[in-house]
């Protein structure tokens, strides 16, 4: 992505800052993935404090103990990303955003104070609100006068602003409500899955914001070309998103190793799930936890969907080669194919290495990138379709030839 930006209201440094936030978010997704892969999410039983200490006051000796390192690092890193997103919003939305930021900040601080007065047991949640409210007020206090970026970028920035706060709250609820029974499972599992899913969406959103601020995006609309086989791009993206949800479910339900062999499953194309077979499968495991039919079926759906998503992306790549050089869908198609190849290999390795934490986490990170690229491709298709239709409307009735559609 080129950083040169001809659009005067989209300064290059704003794009660079947004790219940094996107990179930091990818790091956060990786650490979050590592927390789940290692099963250390509850190593710090309280939130937003850590063992009663403030977020940034935890003694190093405690921070460096076993799984606390991953969980607390995830929390501190997330706070950093939250801080960056708030200031990115201030920068992107310009000085006009100060009033809204001030209102939101005051509301959050007040909500924190009220919460503390209502019930001292909600002190932690109150501190969280006071903390983010303080950061938002800090951003509102930045008096630098700057113009907003494009309307699209501003909208994306505000969406990221709200989403990062929601995501932080969900991460906290995942800890606080861990032992709550919700629909046959625990609050920890339910909120952990929502938190994981929203994390992917948030990453895609931040990458889209960075893209909208880039010089590359501003050149997308040149030489509009209709892409009639765009179905494969949309299908591939939908399948990747479905795959991420299936993967999340598997990770939080410990179904990643419900089937330990490849390419067959317990020597069958679709393993039996009668009681006797389940006992036989469990005997192959070292651990004592039972394997459930649901775990096996979800694992199989994940495998099948992996093949379908790969095929859809291959088709999208194949048809994108018909587009002219420099067309964003063509450029993204090649990258997308590479990523899905890496992702497929990481999926195989996850099973073959007995779900090694670093491999499983790599699988999560590359999955996020694959989804982001899919969303960019869908976006590029839409931008070109609109531009193409617009240009055709203008050209209709004129003597100029129409822009040829590429099959």
């Amino acid at each position, binding site marked *: 992505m080129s950083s040169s930006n001809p659009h005067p209201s989209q300064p290059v440094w704003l794009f660079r800052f947004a790219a940094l936030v996107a990179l930091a978010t990818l790091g956060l997704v990786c650490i979050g993935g590592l927390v789940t892969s*290692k*099963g*250390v*999410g*509850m*190593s*710090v*039983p309280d939130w937003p404090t850590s*063992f009663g200490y403030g977020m940034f006051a935890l003694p190093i000796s*405690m921070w460096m*103990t*076993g*799984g*606390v390192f991953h*969980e607390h690092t995830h929390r501190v890193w997330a706070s950093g990303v939250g801080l960056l997103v708030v200031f990115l919003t201030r920068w992107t939305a310009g000085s006009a955003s100060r009033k809204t930021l001030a209102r939101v900040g005051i509301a959050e601080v007040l909500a924190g104070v009220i919460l503390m007065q209502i019930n001292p047991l909600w002190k932690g949640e109150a501190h969280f609100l006071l903390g983010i409210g303080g950061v938002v007020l800090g951003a509102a206090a930045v008096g630098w006068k700057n113009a907003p970026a494009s309307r699209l970028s501003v909208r994306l920035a505000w969406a990221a602003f709200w989403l990062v706060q929601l995501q932080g709250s969900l991460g906290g609820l995942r800890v606080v409500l*861990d*032992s709550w029974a919700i629909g046959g499972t*625990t609050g920890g599992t339910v909120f952990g899955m929502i938190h994981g899913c929203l994390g992917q969406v948030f990453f895609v959103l931040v990458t889209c914001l960075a893209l909208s601020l880039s010089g590359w995006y501003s050149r997308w609309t040149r030489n509009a070309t209709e892409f009639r086989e765009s179905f494969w791009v949309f299908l591939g993206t939908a399948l990747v998103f479905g795959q991420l949800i299936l993967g999340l479910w598997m990770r939080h339900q410990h179904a990643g190793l419900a089937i330990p062999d490849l390419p067959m499953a317990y020597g069958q194309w679709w393993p039996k799930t009668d009681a006797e077979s389940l*006992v036989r499968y*469990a*005997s192959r495991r*070292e*651990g*004592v936890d039972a394997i459930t039919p649901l775990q096996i079926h979800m694992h199989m759906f994940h495998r099948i969907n992996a093949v379908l998503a790969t095929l859809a992306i291959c088709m999208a790549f194949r048809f994108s080669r018909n587009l002219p050089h420099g067309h964003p869908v063509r450029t993204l198609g090649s990258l997308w194919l590479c990523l899905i190849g890496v992702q497929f290999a990481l999926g195989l390795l996850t099973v073959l290495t007995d779900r090694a934490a670093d491999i499983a986490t790599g699988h999560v990170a590359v999955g996020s990138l694959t989804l982001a690229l899919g969303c960019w491709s869908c976006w590029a298709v839409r931008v070109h379709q609109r531009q193409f239709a617009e240009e055709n409307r203008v050209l209709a009735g004129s003597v100029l030839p129409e822009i040829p559609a590429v099959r």
Partner: protein
Amino acid sequence: MKNTLKVVSMAAAVAASSALAGEITGKIKITGEVPPAREITPIKGDKLCGALHTKPVMTRTYIVGADHGLANVAVYIKAGLPAGKTYTAPATKPLIDQVGCVYEPLITAAMVGQTVDIKNSDAFMHNVNCQAKVNKGFNFAQATQGQVNPRVFDKAELAVKLICNVHPWMSGYVHVFDHPFFAVSDKDGNFTIQGDLPDGKYTVEANHLKSGMVTGEVEVKGGKATLNLELAVK
């Protein structure tokens, strides 16, 4: 005369209580090829935990002793107790210790309402995350060496899992019963269920985390009974 009556009534009370006191002894054996224990490699990789061990720490899925005796099996009265009778929780406090980054013992048995002490003998932090399904779960940190936190389970539940998320390989189990007639088999598979168990016929169940459950019928006569059970490798 008064004193004689007192002595006679005391003797009668002792006789009555000894008639009530009964025990079931026996052995749990394992059949089939027992898979070898595997090293818990993450312990070695952890700087603090690894320093506490000179030998590899092995998994304890199957601990087999003399004459195929299987350890860590919860054995308890499944049926036959007087209907509707309630029992007082013993005053003794079973201890679950976190030592060398493993739970000792792996299997604990307790009665509803009985206090269970959970201790951290290590010089660094553990957290105790109780993943109960029937009882209320809990999660707390034990940052100090020697720290003991008592906990009481208020409902009967088999295999309540305790895990340490700081060291995710650490897990222990508590079986909670609504009566005091239970035991956990020792390293050679031997067990003794003690208490005020009246003479009569009982169904006894043996529960192993990996091998599953097996039941047997036993008759306590004169306060004594023996029952041997077999579990198969799964």
